[in-house]
């Protein structure tokens, strides 16, 4: 079984790095780690980077997960190959671009581009935000799935993900104590549905709501509260249509051995207990 430790980074293609940089610094509030002609590295926590834009097609979207060591990486490669997934062994230069020691790339059953990495770099200097959004770190992703039942099986049987809760047949899955690191979202094609950053307090969620509204950033869902994880949230749209989320107060699963996934009906109150309705963002499964 492939032991995922945590989500590590997201890589996104973009035709307009300037726009991406402008949004990331003035709206989202990330810190620029590095910037050159063809790429933009952004920090959100103690890691050297957690989001990287590179010049290219916005449909190029990759999620990196950390595994224990190079032996685990080799085991993962054999497991994936035996199941018929084509595995790309990362070259030294590619690993350098990702600021990791080593990595492999493959596609999940829906076709999402996934990378498994070893020893992603940290940065000795603390994270210093470009605006006071209160970000404490990159935390999870929403991942498109053309068949949630099949993909849940992949993430929980081939990998070590566990289902924390389900809304309809959409699983919210954890790889550590945090309620979810991967949320599957039913969609007609592969892709990253949203990128989550945690913030310090409720105040940050509400302040950003008013702040982003004033700057005419489309708010697509929230401010709201998920009854599943307990997190207060705000979803908004960034460059190339990517949806970003701020949230705070996501539960931890206290007892790994005895936790049973709860089943929520597929309805608006299962996504928001405050009563906010998605606008310009499809609810998973719809």
């Amino acid at each position, binding site marked *: 079984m492939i032991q995922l430790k945590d989500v590590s980074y997201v890589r996104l293609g973009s035709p307009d790095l300037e726009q991406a940089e402008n949004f990331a610094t003035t709206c989202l509030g990330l810190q620029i780690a590095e910037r050159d002609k063809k790429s933009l590295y952004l920090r959100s926590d103690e890691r050297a980077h957690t989001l990287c834009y590179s010049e290219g097609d916005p449909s190029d979207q990759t999620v990196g997960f950390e595994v224990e060591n190079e032996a685990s990486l080799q085991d993962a490669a054999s497991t994936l190959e035996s199941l018929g997934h084509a595995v790309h062994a990362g070259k030294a230069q590619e690993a350098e671009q990702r600021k990791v020691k080593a990595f492999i790339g493959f596609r999940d059953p829906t076709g999402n581009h996934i990378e498994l990495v070893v020893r992603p770099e940290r940065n000795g200097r603390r994270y210093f935000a470009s605006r006071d959004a209160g970000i404490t770190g990159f935390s999870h992703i929403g991942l498109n799935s053309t068949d949630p039942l099949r993909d849940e099986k992949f993430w929980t049987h081939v990998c070590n993900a566990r289902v924390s809760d389900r809304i309809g047949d959409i699983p919210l899955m954890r790889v550590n104590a945090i309620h979810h690191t991967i949320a599957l979202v039913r969609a007609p094609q592969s892709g990253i549905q949203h990128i989550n950053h945690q913030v310090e307090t409720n*105040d940050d969620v*509400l*302040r950003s709501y*008013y702040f982003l509204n004033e700057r005419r950033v489309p708010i697509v869902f929230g401010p*709201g*509260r998920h009854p599943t994880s307990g997190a207060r949230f705000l979803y908004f749209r960034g460059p190339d249509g990517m949806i970003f989320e701020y949230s705070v107060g996501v539960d931890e699963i206290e007892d790994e051995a005895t936790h049973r996934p709860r089943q929520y009906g597929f309805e608006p109150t299962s996504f928001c*207990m*405050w*009563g*906010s309705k998605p606008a310009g963002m499809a609810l998973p499964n719809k």
Partner: protein
Amino acid sequence: MSESAKNRTTPLIASVCYVRYAVSEPLACARFVSDIFGLQQVADRDGELAFRSDDRYRTVSLSNDQGDGASIGVEVWDEAALQEIGERLHEHGFAVRTTNADKCRRRYVYSALLAEDASGNRIDLVTRPARSGRRYFPPRDAGIVRFQGIGLRSTDHVRDLAFWRLLGTEVTDWVGDIAYLRIDNLHHRIALYPSRRNGLLYAAFEVEALDQIMQNSYFMQENQVKIVQGPGRQSASRQTFLHVEGPDGLILSYVNGIAEVGEKPRPPRQFPLTATSLCNWGSECKGVPELSART
């Protein structure tokens, strides 16, 4: 100050215990207060509709009596305190009237003095306001816990402040000339807003948590109720709030998480009259000048 006041070991006043509104359409307002805002209607007596929000018999009344219909109830500690306050107000030139059994009955209190501040706001100083043995049972799940306090319009904030100080309240903080007044361990129970006219600005009701502030905000949007301001958070008191407006310009507020005042005395803090002093999340008030930062 009389001998009895010097020897007091208890405060002169205990709480703001009710608000009585005189409105032109009591029935339309009543629907707003119960069906929309979520208070429990308990009585319809002497032309006044009464509503509960906690273990008190009633905290809100509505009538169309523009004469004796509008007032704010302040619970005085005991009869001695009532007498003391009466003397103090009289000495300082404020109007104070004694009252009769009928007016006390109408207010659900044991005894009362009817006072006016310098702006002409009617303040009922009352003893032993009625409580109810039955628990509060609201018409909808708005999460209301209790009546917390009021915002009051003031046309003469120096004299009005003097009035409230005679009752034993203290200023905890200023936003411009808006004064937050405390009477117990909470940051404030009364907020005095400089205004061109007098009258009650809002009555505030504590809800269980931020969840209820937000749920009520979406509930109001869905029911096309005017949100005057919020969801927001007051910078000085740290309380989250949502001000909503019903018929007749009636403003009611949900609040949660007000700061408590510590043991150690501190001077009132001065905040400038800017939008971020009134709400540090960034909400702005629409259409109510007292709640807006004038630019």
